[in-house]
């Protein structure tokens, strides 16, 4: 009798050990944005963690704090040491399950981020579906700035990328860690957006975001960083970046300005479909691109007729073909397989000699509210 009672008591006590895992919500430091920089001389990593401040963010009356996030920075020589180091400065438990984005400094990216990828995959606290950005402004300036409109900078960046996400097929914007991992062994590069801070000094006081001019101290995303085998090899300008996504990664929207009859017409190409075909396997690749066009701005000084629309379509086709050929030329010059020739049946040695032809067709589907522009006669 005694033994079984003792057994029951011990079991109940043992069950209480589950409490060691309690992570009560208000004891957590919820990290929303992480930034990593590597000093090329000493090899030390500088990590910045931006922690959300719940009372500053909540809409309840009586909360006095105004700062929505706080940034902590640490310096150490190996990634795994940060988890313990954060305990020395952060008053709460380091909680990374809600990380929204990661920022990597350009100089670290140029050295290669394979060690960071390994660390993120191994750690059960981190997730690999975080979006990455490369920053060409100094990392401490970006990490110490508040952002307007969306008070948590991590969310700000994520919602900027969501805007692009909708235009991708299957709603996936492939700028995450796992896309880098997937492309590790492949030859097609991954292009990660570069963020750039517009001002000079960091907007480090929350009063700064009370100013009405939101672009002055804000962030912009324009160019792209080209990663091959998890190492940054160069930059792409904005237009080339979009074209790269269209030709490879199923991006479906493009806004272009074309000149028709001497005036500007802005069109938006929707539902872009790209098909590759090997005309002669290994040596001649052809891209068939089809788009539906929509007129955004028509400055021509003549009526819109069916012929006019066909002119616009033809003009668009020519322009897109020219741009694609320019991209192809650049990719062969620089040695980046931006068209993905090797991965889709091309040869490693001879991809540069592969002939590529582009054939663009478009259909005008939507013309806007006016049937003819206003003319001054």
């Amino acid at each position, binding site marked *: 009798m005694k033994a079984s009672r003792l057994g029951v008591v011990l079991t109940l006590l043992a069950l209480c050990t*589950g409490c060691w895992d*309690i992570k009560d*919500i208000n004891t*957590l430091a919820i990290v929303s944005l992480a930034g990593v920089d590597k000093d090329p001389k000493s090899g030390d990593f500088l990590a910045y963690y931006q922690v959300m401040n719940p009372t500053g963010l909540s809409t*309840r009356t009586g909360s006095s704090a105004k700062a929505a996030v706080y940034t902590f920075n640490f310096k150490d020589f190996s990634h795994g040491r940060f988890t313990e180091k954060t305990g020395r400065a952060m008053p709460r438990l380091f*909680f990374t399950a*809600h990380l929204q984005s990661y920022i990597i400094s350009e100089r670290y990216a140029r050295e290669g981020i394979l060690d960071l990828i390994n660390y993120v995959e191994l750690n059960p606290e981190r997730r690999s579906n975080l979006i990455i950005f490369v920053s060409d402004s100094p990392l401490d300036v970006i990490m110490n700035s508040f952002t307007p409109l969306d008070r948590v900078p991590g*969310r700000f960046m994520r919602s900027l990328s969501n805007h692009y996400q909708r235009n991708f097929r299957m709603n996936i914007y492939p700028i995450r860690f796992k896309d880098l991992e997937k492309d590790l062994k492949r030859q097609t590069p991954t292009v990660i957006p570069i963020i750039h801070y517009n001002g000079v000094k960091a907007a480090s006081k929350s009063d700064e975001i009370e100013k009405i001019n939101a672009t002055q101290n804000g962030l912009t995303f324009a160019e792209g960083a080209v990663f091959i085998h998890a190492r940054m090899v160069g930059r792409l300008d904005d237009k080339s970046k979009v074209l790269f996504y269209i030709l490879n990664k199923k991006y479906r929207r493009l806004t272009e300005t074309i000149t028709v009859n001497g005036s500007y017409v802005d069109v938006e190409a929707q539902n872009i479909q790209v098909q590759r075909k090997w005309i002669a396997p290994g040596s001649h690749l052809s891209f068939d691109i089809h788009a539906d066009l929509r007129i955004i701005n028509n400055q021509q000084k003549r009526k819109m007729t069916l012929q006019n629309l066909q002119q616009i379509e033809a003009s668009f086709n020519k322009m897109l073909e020219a741009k694609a050929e320019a991209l192809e030329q650049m990719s062969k010059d620089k040695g980046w397989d931006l068209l993905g020739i090797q991965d889709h049946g091309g040869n490693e040695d001879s991809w540069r000699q592969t002939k590529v032809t582009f054939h663009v067709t478009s259909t005008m589907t939507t013309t806007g509210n006016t049937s003819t522009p206003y003319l001054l006669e």
Partner: protein
Amino acid sequence: MLIVHQIMERLGHSPDFVCHEFALSPDLGLFCIYISSIVSTEHANEFIFKPILEQNLDARALHDPKSWLESLIPKAQTDAFKEATEGIQRLLEGQCLLISSSGDCRLSYDIAKGQNRSVSEPTTEASIRGPREGFVEDIARNVALIRKRLKSEHLIFEQLIIGTETKTKVYLTYIDNIAQVKVVEEFRRRLNSIHADSILESSYIEEWIQDNTWSPFPQLLFTERPDSVVAKLMEGQVVVMTDGTPIALVGPVTFFQFFNSPEDYYQRADIATLSRWLRFFAFLLSIFVPALYIAVVSYHPELLPNSLLISLAAQREEVPFPAFFEAAIMMVTFEILREAGLRMPRIAGQSISIVGALVLGEAAVEAGLVSAAMVIVVSLTAISNFVSPNYGFGIAQRIIQFAFMILAGLMGLFGLMCGVFFVLIHLVSLRSFGVKYFTPLAPLVLSAWRDTLFRVPRYKMKRFPHRRMQNK
């Protein structure tokens, strides 16, 4: 004479004991004994005293008083008795004893007066459409209510007297060409094996005859509505009615029958189906929501979407307790409120419920003792508790929800899931008079799904019970 003395010895001290002696003639005396509080004295006067006193004595009266008395007094309620104990028993049931002075004529007349409330709307099971009659405390009138609705010759009432001191009448009711013989036998066997001295309510009987006393889930349904009882009789179930209480027990019963209300059968089929799903959902809500809240807030904050996480974190900034204690405090307070609401006198009861719910919750949040989300969780749980049409089942829900809360507080989702598995095994292994508790979901009896998860329209309910019962 002797017998009268015996009776007076036992009961004479009682203030309502009445013993009249009539000397009708020098040879013939008559004792009339009754207990005045339980007889109707008008009946006594009208049918017993008047005929006796007004009648002339004739020769027959002197020779054979028994048949003379029998001819005088309405035969329908007359009975003869022999021993004093029998006489005492009948006195206590409200009969009037007529004993001749020679002692050889002993008759008793049933003039009991029932002190009953009239048939009114059932308080625990209200319905919008459907009859408003509920059972009363007198078993004879309850039988009348059933017979009025079910005019079948196969309706059987078996009477048992249970309880050595209270001698309560218990009727075992069933329809003999629909109910299964084995089940009826089992009921009879269990009722006969009750050794108790008092049966005051049907719950006493329930505790004696149910399969598993320690389970929080009831294995017998109780109901106060005669239309509900008749419907269940027609499905082949057995009903136990107890004198002195309006609640009748129905068995064998499965888990899913606790989600049926008689309302379902009086409303349209699609509304009834949706209401049933709502009840299932409310059941799941009430047992899982507090436990899930504790598990997620304490152990798995990564489950919450980002904005919810921030708002919960902001709310919990000021709260001094860990999530488990906060939840426990609120739930216990609510249980106290509920109990108090039951006992409050009617007038004060209304104000307590409004005061308690709104002001207490609001004030607790303002004082920083609990977070606002917790108040929502508790109110949602409490309201979902009342959705079950059967009150006994609501109590089971409360026990389960507290058990899950403790498990979730100890070990998060892992503990909660172990608890769920445990409760499932328990439910599935319960038997109600031989019928598996979780029929027709496990074991899978697809034909019985017409009335469990759905309520199909009547023209689709084609199978008659005596065929359906074989699957059970």
